[in-house]
């Protein structure tokens, strides 16, 4: 039997008993970069949080390489949305990235030289090496996103879940993230990325997961990125629909 990096079976998640995600079934193959696409309030972030077990779900199960997440935490790295933390917090860039090692260290153990080296490498990889001693608040939005990614890199996980890493970042950061995604795919890591921009999703991701409360479609990008499926995903949202149509038209015109 194949052990999927991420397998979700009949997952339903509710806030105050009101379901926000219905009966999600999903099996993500290894070494692909998946874009999670859907309108506002479709449950994209909720799906990631449910996978990480940050939310209790009403039914279903989630498995990472065949085992529940509680046994596989070391294999999964989570990158929250940038707005979820207080950037005035008194820590440096290096301190933040070092947090990526905490999961492996466990209680009572201090980071060793090896951990510090991994942190430095992760910082270099996202081009933030020269910022290591800065307080995290003195950075641009894109730089903040990059150190979040460096923290994820320092985790050395097999599966990554990223919540809107492209939101509000500059061109340099966008390129850095895309390069990172390609590298991760080459290393057979599996990445799920929540993303807003339809056109970018088509370019950046191998697979797309279209959701709107329910799973609309999951598959290789070229099969799933169709007008019909996008229309289904974005339902009555006319503006988004027209934007989607535009995106499809544009990419057709180019190729």
């Amino acid at each position, binding site marked *: 039997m194949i052990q999927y990096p991420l397998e979700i079976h009949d997952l339903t998640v509710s806030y105050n008993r009101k379901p926000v995600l219905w009966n999600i079934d999903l099996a993500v193959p290894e070494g692909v970069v998946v874009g999670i696409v859907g309108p506002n309030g479709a449950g994209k972030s909720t799906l990631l949080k449910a996978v*990480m077990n940050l939310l209790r779900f009403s039914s279903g199960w989630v498995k990472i390489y065949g085992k529940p997440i509680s046994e596989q935490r070391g294999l999964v790295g989570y990158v929250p949305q940038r707005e979820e933390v207080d950037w005035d917090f008194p820590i440096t860039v290096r301190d933040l990235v070092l947090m990526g090692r905490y999961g492996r260290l466990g209680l009572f153990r201090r980071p060793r030289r090896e951990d510090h080296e991994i942190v430095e490498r992760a910082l270099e990889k996202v081009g933030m090496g020269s910022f290591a001693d800065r307080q995290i608040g003195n950075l641009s939005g894109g730089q903040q996103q990059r150190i979040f990614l460096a923290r994820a890199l320092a985790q050395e996980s097999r599966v990554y879940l990223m919540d809107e890493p492209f939101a509000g970042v500059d061109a340099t950061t966008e390129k850095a993230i895309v390069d990172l995604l390609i590298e991760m795919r080459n290393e057979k890591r599996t990445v799920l990325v929540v993303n807003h921009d339809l056109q970018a999703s088509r370019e950046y991701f191998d697979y797309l997961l279209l959701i709107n409360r329910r799973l609309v479609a999951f598959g290789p990008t070229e099969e799933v990125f169709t007008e019909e499926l996008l229309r289904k995903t974005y339902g009555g949202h006319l503006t988004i629909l027209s934007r989607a149509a535009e995106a499809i038209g544009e990419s057709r015109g180019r190729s």
Partner: protein
Amino acid sequence: MALKKGHLVALLLLEITVMAVRPPSVHAVQFSRERDVTWDSIVRETRSFFANVFLGGVDEDGDGTLSNGERANSSLLRSASVAAVLVGVTCGLLGCFITLRRMAMFGDMLGHAVLPGIAVGYILVGSKSTPALLLGALGAGLLAAALTKTICSWSRVKEDAALGISLSFFYALGSWLLFWITRDPALRTEASGLDEYLFGNPAVINPPDLWALGLAAAVVLGIVSIGFKEFLVCTFDQGFAASIGLNRGKADTTLLVLLTVVIVVSIKVLGVVLVAAALTIPPATAYLLTDRLKRLCLVSAAIGALSGFGGTYLSAVLYIGTGPAIVCLAFGLLLVVFVVSPRHGILSRILRHRSLALRTARENILAAAFRICEREKRSEATSVGVTLENIAAARNESVEATRAIARKLRGSGWALLRDDRLVLTVEGEERARRVVRTHRLWELFLSQEARLPPDHVHPGAEEIEHYMTDEALEELEKFLNHPRTDPHGRAIPDSKPRTGREQREADA
């Protein structure tokens, strides 16, 4: 300050005022019966305070030996100082996490809420036994915390209101019980001194209290240093903390129990109403001084210790209550840091602002001179210069105003003032060229990209011309495809002056 403490500080000041109008005998440390503070009394009391705390006592009657009374006085002052320092360190340390978690008001609530527990402990045991009172207080504190959480999660009442409800209800309950104790003939015999818990008085600290304080300090220090990185992650980024398997609920509960314990052992020194100060003022002060959590903890603990010891000293010398003295001293330190802190103080902010304003003024006048030369198609800004009169006319201001700013250029190395003419140096011309260049590129950017009409683009460019970095400028120029003219049709100067040949070629 990012920590929202404005209302808390206001509340504390109010409470200090309320205490100040009460007869001092209730809460003042009764180290001395004298009340007149003179220079002599300060010197005398200072000498006696340090001799008592560090040297074992003062031979007041001059008989060459220390009597029992003199020894007792010394040990009392010493335990008062030790207690105040321990409270300062413990609260200062724990307070860092409390304030960063935005639980400062929670600390204030707990401080007030332990009062009924003290009363119940006393009623049950019938004496002021330290363990009984502390256990009672601990119970009441945890109960109040549970009440707050219950109100929040089972109704639509928000957290600040829930805190207010718990605080006032438990405090009312405690006052009522204390009132009842003092009226009941069977209970009141032992009860004198119970209101030390209300206002705090380190002079009544006894050995069990000190043991409790020392133990609490050791426990807090131990848990915080062992679980430092876990507390750090749980405080900073709860989602990530949970994602690596840290139990956020456990961290919160640990913090809550530690907080209650620390408050319970601290109230005999500071009193229920002032204990929140020790949890918030030192961390806030440290927060203005450092950008690293470890240093924040150390600095905060040090400030707590300093204000604890200093407050005890002030209360002995000035004959004022110890609790208020500690809190006011801590607030004084905060005020000083608030003004002079190198990075986050208002003084450095003002200085930064002024140096920026000076640079802006200098650059504006250089740019004006550059524009005039450009208009008159001459390049002698660096040799003959431009008259201040011309600059003033171009800038639409009086010659005096221009002269005032021109004088500020002295010492900048950018221009000289000669016979009421501004003569730019080579560096000054380069600077001016860059400002004008940035200005016009930005105008072009605004009109092309933001589609603003030409009469809308000047104010924005007037701002940005002083701030643009070299890389941004380069990127902007590339983005605009190396344009030659701005939306008003004026030439955008090159980054370097052209040589004579280049100029002739361009003109041709």
